[in-house]
């Protein structure tokens, strides 16, 4: 698509010649100049979207706009902006007597991305502490991750392993460490989008408009790709990852008006492809307690699915992949106007998204070779005027989402005994069925009434009910009630004001149930390592099975109750000046099971607009956003 600008230029000339022959008047402007930006540090911080110039220093730019709307019904418009090789915008519109209208646009720009140096990833296991002056035996119980057993002198800091010297031993060895493999690389994505759409009205069928569009979006460049090997040690690396994404949208449809009935149908086909090279990384050897932490080829507690040389001798593995996908959607809408003020609108949407999947030899298998999600939406809206001054709007929508569950068979890396799981040996394969949160039913019902109070004021009352019935019980079902009241009035000739209040109550918003916190059933106290009241707590070494499986506290960042009030006033003493002041207050809270939080948001703003001439607009605006959140739930974190 990088050659699109030349194709567009050719198209422009091709259209310009016949259009200029029809056109009776042409208006336009051409602008050329220079623009510069000084970048001393990071492009991301001062020039994230390269709007002034792509690189440090001064660059030439050019803009042009041409338009013609002749009396003969032929018109065209052209906009062009060239700020640099990667920053371009073109738009072309052509209208042939409203029989055939086409619009084509192209834009590109560069988006600079973050580069994480990962210099916070250093963590080590502390050396053992022994009685004063005595050496301490080194073994997996004292320092996980030692390669060889020996002894450690905490006074002198020396290690003895047989006849080996201390140099090859590891005291407080790294357990987490990060490596930035591309420390000097800048990451950015060049975004290109070409959009085309047309409307065609055949003179023999003037009540039907055929329409279509084609959109091609590309994202090309490099981004940072971070991956980690787990246990032991946790090794995080950051490297460069090629991005070459392409999204193609093709839409075709028609809108027909048949008396009081209007119908619209649109079919859209989307193809998404990632053509960039797949990133690969080494998955470090995992040291196994089962082998006394001395054999890097042993398996870490039988819980590793793969590492750097197993299974199958595959040294590197793909990671951070982006799946290709295809989507088709059908949108059908119909509207019947009973009177000028009473109408009924119905809609039906069916969409399917499909993505091919495959397993990995020796690691995992997936039942089936693709996953598919189906969406069906049925909407109905009705609007009328019950009284000359009272408008009523009713709406309802039923949405059904269904996605494939997936059965995955894992092949654990080795079958040595697991001391932390009672010494048992895992089977050669484990098959799990994974449900999907996508599958759910959504019901939305709403009603709004707008009442005109005289000639200067209106009052709006609104109510909405929403219910989300999820197939996956872990996330529970959600029911929401929302009430809105809004008042708009003209306080004086040049002074308008609005005020509104919204209350929303949500039962069980999307939450991670049993996400944290274990309360001992006997003591009523939180878990600690000396708690032995539960045979599975505190007596074993494995924090995970003893604790994670018994968490009881729900967590969510979505509110159960929301109050929001807004007020604004606009003063317009002159046609070229206005001042607007507004204030928004919002209070959210959620009393989750065993945790609760509340958040208050204040947002006042002041905006002044002045247009001394037709070509010059000045805006001064100030906005303050203050937000305070308080969670009555304690999580282990930094000291102090």
């Amino acid at each position: 698509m990088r050659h699109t600008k030349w194709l567009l230029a050719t198209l422009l000339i091709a259209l310009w010649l016949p259009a200029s022959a029809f056109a009776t008047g042409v208006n336009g402007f051409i602008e050329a100049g220079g623009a510069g930006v000084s970048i001393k540090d990071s492009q991301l911080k001062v020039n994230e979207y390269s709007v002034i110039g792509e690189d440090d220093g001064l660059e030439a730019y050019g803009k042009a706009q041409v338009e013609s709307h002749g009396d003969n019904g032929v018109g065209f418009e052209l906009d062009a902006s060239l700020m640099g090789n990667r920053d371009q915008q073109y738009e072309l519109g052509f209208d042939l007597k409203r029989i055939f209208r086409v619009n084509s646009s192209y834009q590109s720009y560069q988006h600079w991305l973050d580069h994480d140096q990962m210099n916070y990833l250093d963590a080590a296991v502390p050396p053992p502490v022994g009685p004063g002056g005595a050496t301490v035996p080194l073994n997996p119980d004292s320092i996980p991750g030692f390669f060889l057993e020996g002894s450690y002198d905490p006074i002198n800091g020396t290690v003895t392993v047989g006849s080996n010297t201390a140099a090859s031993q590891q005291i407080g060895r790294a357990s987490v460490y990060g490596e930035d493999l591309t420390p000097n690389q800048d990451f950015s994505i060049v975004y290109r989008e070409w959009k085309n759409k047309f409307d065609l009205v055949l003179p023999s069928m003037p009540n039907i408009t055929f329409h279509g569009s084609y959109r091609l979006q590309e994202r090309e460049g490099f981004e940072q790709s971070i991956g980690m090997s787990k246990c032991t040690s946790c090794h995080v690396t950051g490297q460069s990852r090629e991005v070459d994404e392409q999204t193609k949208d093709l839409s075709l449809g028609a809108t027909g008006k048949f008396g009081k009935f209007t119908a619209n149908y649109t079919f859209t086909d989307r193809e998404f492809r990632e053509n960039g090279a797949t990133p690969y990384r080494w998955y470090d050897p995992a040291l196994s307690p089962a082998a006394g932490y001395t054999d890097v080829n042993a398996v870490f507690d039988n819980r590793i699915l793969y590492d750097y040389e197993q299974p199958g001798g595959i040294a590197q593995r793909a990671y951070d992949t982006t799946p290709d996908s295809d989507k088709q959607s059908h949108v059908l809408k119909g509207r019947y106007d009973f009177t000028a003020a009473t109408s009924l609108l119905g809609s039906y949407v069916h969409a399917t998204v499909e993505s091919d999947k495959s397993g990995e030899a020796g690691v995992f298998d997936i039942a089936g070779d693709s996953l598919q999600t189906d969406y069906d939406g049925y909407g109905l809206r009705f609007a009328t005027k019950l009284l000359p001054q009272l408008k009523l709007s009713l709406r309802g929508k039923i949405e059904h989402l269904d996605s494939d569950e997936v059965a995955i068979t894992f092949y654990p890396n080795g079958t040595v005994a697991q001391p932390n799981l009672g010494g048992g040996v895992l089977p050669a394969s484990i098959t799990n069925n994974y449900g999907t949160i996508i599958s759910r039913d959504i019901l939305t019902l709403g009603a709004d009434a707008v009442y005109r109070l005289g000639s200067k004021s209106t009052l709006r009352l609104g109510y909405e009910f929403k219910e989300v019935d999820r197939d996956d019980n872990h996330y529970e079902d959600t029911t929401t009630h929302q009430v809105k009241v809004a008042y708009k009035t003209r306080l004086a000739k040049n002074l308008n004001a609005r005020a509104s209040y919204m209350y929303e109550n949500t039962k069980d918003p999307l939450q991670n149930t049993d996400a944290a916190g274990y309360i001992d059933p006997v003591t009523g106290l939180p878990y600690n390592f000396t708690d032995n009241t539960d045979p599975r707590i505190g007596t074993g070494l494995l924090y995970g099975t003893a604790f994670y499986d018994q968490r009881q506290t729900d967590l969510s960042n979505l509110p159960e109750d929301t109050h929001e009030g807004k007020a604004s006033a606009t003063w317009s003493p002159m046609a070229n000046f206005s001042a607007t002041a507004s204030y928004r207050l919002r209070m959210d809270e959620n009393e989750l099971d065993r945790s609760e939080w509340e958040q208050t948001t204040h947002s006042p703003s002041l905006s002044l607009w002045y247009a001394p001439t037709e070509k010059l607009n000045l805006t001064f605006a100030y906005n303050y956003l203050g937000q305070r959140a308080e969670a009555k739930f304690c999580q282990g974190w930094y000291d102090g």
Partner: protein
Amino acid sequence: MDWTHGEHALADVACTDCHSVHAGGKMSLKQQDPDLCYSCHQEQQAKANFPSHHPIKEGKMTCGDCHNPHGELETEELARDLCLECHSRYQGPFVFEHAPVEEDCSICHDPHGTVSNNLLKQTEPFLCLQCHESHFHTMRSGGTTASDVLAFDANALNGATPAGTPTAANGIPFTNAHGDDGWRQAFGTKCTVCHSVVHGSDLPSQTSPTIGNNGEGFPDGGKGLTR
């Protein structure tokens, strides 16, 4: 086709609030998008100037790319489908999902602009901690003893004889600059360093699902969204 039910209609916004029959601009608008929208939506104007924002003020997007001023959002499906028109890489479906991604992008992101990077409503790790417990490693006190060779990786060990044998020669110098706070910094700074594919993945994490002696074990192994 749907003006009657749109928010502007219900808020008693008149055609002449935005359009002027004497205006010469596109669609006879009094001002162009986004300036016209900002005249009422001041808070969105402020957010568009936050450190993390869509390229609206740079002229690469307009409010109308997502919002239909005569109706509602520019989609007939869920709100997330609007996001996926441009961010198609997250369309999935994924083998290993992250629930809020499939529910609503706005659970974690504010598309109008945020102080945090990537349009996140909160910085990491605090955003993640709203729904997930902190990693238990953050409570661990770290070692501080210096050493010349404290780490190794598969790249270094691959050429060793016998294969995979760690020695001083193929190890990686490692300085534990953070001392006691090493674990807290490593596990409490940025969750996505390890859980890097939070929008979903087709590849399992390195941890295998297991079955413990109580029949439970770690059935969710593989779902860590680290690969």
